């Protein structure tokens, strides 16, 4: 920033009527606190379709201490805060409600220490998921949770959403890979949760924090478990002439006692969109494709791969291809992992669902979802982590069409109910955020919700950490109207 810019910013600061902002600037620096309309607008969104966010000042801390100071200042002025990673959340978790200070963690992106003996990596929360795995390659390790957004999402965001990914079928989602967290609580106090010992002393609060979507405090340092990269990997691509065949193959593989590292299904529409981006040789005429990966020692993978082929053909696979180079394998995965992004080729907007249903009811649920889409005249596409029954039906639409959003939300609600009726849960991995708040009442009893709320109160009695998220209205913290609103126009 030039001297002139700095000067202008300094002037702007003296004319800013908000001492809250002035104090934040004092604690960080003028370059790392933005409060102009443009910056606040840009931080009012994430990758979800929710548009009602309204950010306060946007802070870019670079140390734990700065995060602590931000929290203390926010406490002092009774202002809310919301943490933000890469903003790839699909449930609106990082969308600011009630003009909170946005704490963007992207500048805290250092890999602090790799401890091979203890199989731990210490990282700052803004480290990009894939960057850690790339860094670990030289040691023969990787970070196992691999959300499809792994090339951009932050580990802090993964922890907050307890994110999963294709390879979490064998390895478990994020919470199975987090050993310790350093967090700043809403009152500015620092706490260390968990530790390297298998049974850390005192109450193990990791479970409470992981997946809490930034509502209990802000993570500033994470100790993650690193995983040895297996010596051999086989990737199979199975084509089917119906979605039902693909779904039944998935159940049959698991029933045969094989737990592949990953099992992913894509329907025909999404396969076509993906193929035109990556050119990986995905079959564009198959009604569904199943991507299966097995890993381990060479002998084991060979046996498992041939077993899966048998099961596949028995359940109607029309073609089975095995990737025979690392390059081919990477291309196939690139296709799967960019699937959500590729759909703009079909429609400008999408609404992505994230529910988990028992594997055995996969085929039935998918058919019911098709019916709903048909009734609402919406295009639906399916791409999902089949191995653990984690569905991601995508509704495609053009938001500019009159009444479209209402239609999409109504169809979404029905889909949610279908999964709950089939014995499923609300979120596989993307979190509750604002997306599914209203449905919490359907899955949990009032008593459950009150307990959840009490837990939250224990850490955040003023409801200032990511207010308006997760817990439904009526359960206090969602009540953002109660928050102090900043007078119009104060931030330009």
């Amino acid at each position, binding site marked *: 920033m030039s001297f002139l810019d700095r000067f202008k910013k300094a002037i702007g600061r003296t004319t800013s009527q908000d001492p809250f902002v002035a104090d934040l600037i004092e604690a960080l620096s003028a370059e790392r606190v933005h409060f102009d309309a443009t910056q606040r*607008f840009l931080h009012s969104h994430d990758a979800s379709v929710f548009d009602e966010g309204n950010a306060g000042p946007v802070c870019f801390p670079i140390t734990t201490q700065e995060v602590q100071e931000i929290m203390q200042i926010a406490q002092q002025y009774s202002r809310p805060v919301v943490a933000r990673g890469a903003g790839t959340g699909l449930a609106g978790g990082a969308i600011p409600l009630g003009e909170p200070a946005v704490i963007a963690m992207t500048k805290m992106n250092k890999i602090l220490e790799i401890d091979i003996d203890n199989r731990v990596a210490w990282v700052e929360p803004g480290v990009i998921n894939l960057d850690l795995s790339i860094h670990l390659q030289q040691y023969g390790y990787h970070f196992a949770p691999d959300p499809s957004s792994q*090339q951009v999402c932050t580990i802090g965001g993964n922890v907050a959403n307890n994110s999963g990914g294709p390879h979490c079928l064998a390895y478990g989602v994020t919470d199975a890979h987090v050993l310790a967290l350093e967090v700043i609580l809403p009152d500015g106090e620092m706490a260390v949760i968990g530790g390297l010992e298998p049974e850390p002393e005192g109450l193990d609060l990791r479970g409470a924090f992981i997946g809490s979507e930034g509502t209990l405090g802000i993570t500033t340092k994470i100790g993650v478990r690193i995983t040895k990269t297996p010596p051999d990997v086989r990737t199979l691509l199975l084509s089917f002439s119906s979605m039902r065949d693909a779904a039944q193959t998935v159940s049959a593989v698991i029933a045969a006692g094989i737990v592949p590292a990953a099992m992913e299904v894509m329907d025909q529409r999404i396969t076509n969109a993906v193929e035109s981006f990556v050119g990986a040789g995905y079959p564009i005429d198959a009604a569904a494709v199943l991507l299966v990966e097995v890993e381990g020692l060479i002998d084991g993978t060979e046996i498992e791969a041939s077993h899966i082929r048998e099961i596949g053909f028995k359940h109607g696979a029309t073609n089975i291809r095995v990737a025979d180079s690392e390059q081919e394998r990477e291309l196939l995965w690139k296709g799967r992992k960019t699937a959500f992004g590729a759909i703009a*080729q079909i429609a400008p907007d999408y609404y992505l669902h994230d529910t988990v249903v028992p594997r055995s009811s996969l085929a039935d649920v998918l058919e019911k979802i098709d019916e709903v889409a048909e009734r609402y005249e919406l295009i639906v596409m399916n791409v999902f982590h089949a191995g653990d029954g984690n569905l991601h039906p995508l509704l495609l639409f053009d938001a500019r069409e009159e009444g479209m959003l209402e239609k999409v939300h109504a169809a979404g609600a029905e889909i949610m109910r279908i999964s709950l009726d089939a014995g499923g849960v609300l979120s596989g991995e993307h979190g509750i955020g604002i997306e599914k708040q209203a449905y919490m009442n359907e899955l949990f009893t009032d008593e459950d919700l009150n307990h959840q709320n009490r837990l939250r109160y224990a850490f955040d009695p003023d409801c200032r950490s990511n207010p308006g998220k997760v817990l439904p209205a009526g359960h206090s913290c969602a009540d953002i109207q109660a928050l102090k609103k900043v007078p119009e126009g104060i931030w330009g």
Partner: protein
Amino acid sequence: MVDLKIGIEELNTCVQCGLCLPHCPTFRITGEEAMSPRGRIRLMQEIQMNDRPITKEAVDSFDTCIQCRGCEPACPSGVPYGSLIEQTKSTLVEKKYLLPKWQQIPFFFLTRPRLLRFFTRLLVVAKKIHLLPNRFAMPENIPIWDKPLRESGNDVYLFTGCVMDAWQRETHRSSKRVLEHLGFGVTPTGDRIPCCGALHDHAGLMQSAKDISQKVIRSLSENELPILVDSAGCGAALKEYGHLLGTDEANRFSARVFDIHEWVAEHLDVLQSPAKLPISVIVQDPCHLRHVQESHEAVRLVLEPFVETLIDLNDDGLCCGAGGAFSLFQPALASQARERKVAGIRAQSHDVVASANPGCMLHLQQVGVNIKHPMEIIDEALSRGIQI
């Protein structure tokens, strides 16, 4: 309220997924949404469709874009980011948000080779007596007087461009010798085609770029000879004339343009295999070769027979920060981008770095990187014996 004049369909292809973020040098450096492709597109959408006022911060967001287009191949939705930002900058210049008149003066010289050479001499002298700021990247050894390249036949054109012909003519000489070695008679375009208009287009001077491109097409349309380019930036611009002008004539012209490495790679077989130079070479991919022309592999193909080892940088082709005139207008960001690149280069033992773009060469040379154009390396291998 300002109409950016971008097609709504093009703008709407962005679903804001964020998958392009890590491929953007300015996002990598700053971690800020406003410095990311997604943020920039979001602002375009809002300005264009919801009448969002253009604030200083919005202008900054667009102006800090290096236009490296690393975000484009990374985008699964096929958002045509290059044309979005060019159109945006063009409108911003037109409405006087960007590039005040005095900043447009240097662009005037680009299409006037004699003046450009005259000023180059003044600059050489000014640099010698330390009148120029350090960030002004300029080769050390520009001769005060230099003969233009001579025609050696008419099988192919060698596009010589503006600044490159004034400052890095030695590179053209190498390219020409390599082509002649392969048996092609070369017609250098020289002063007849002073500039391709790429720098104008990137700066938001779209009308000037269009005027220039029409002149270029006219001057080279007396025959159908292939047009070979040894500057990745110029090559990308010439190949995009079809898109810029939207005419059949321009499309036909663009189809005749080849990056010199693409051409040489196709004709390598006529060469007797020479002794390899005993050097290890890091290949640095210029953005406009890798992300726009997508012909960066050709550089490896042509270098491979001539040098002992080729080394790739493990950085996804992230921009070095040169970006045409970007390093002059945004020196801080440009040097931060360069630091990343240089750290990657220094981490690998090597003798020389090969870069197929004059801008990247100057930008990296400035901090002491030993960098050569691939054609210079091949030229040396063919003439043998000269020390690198």
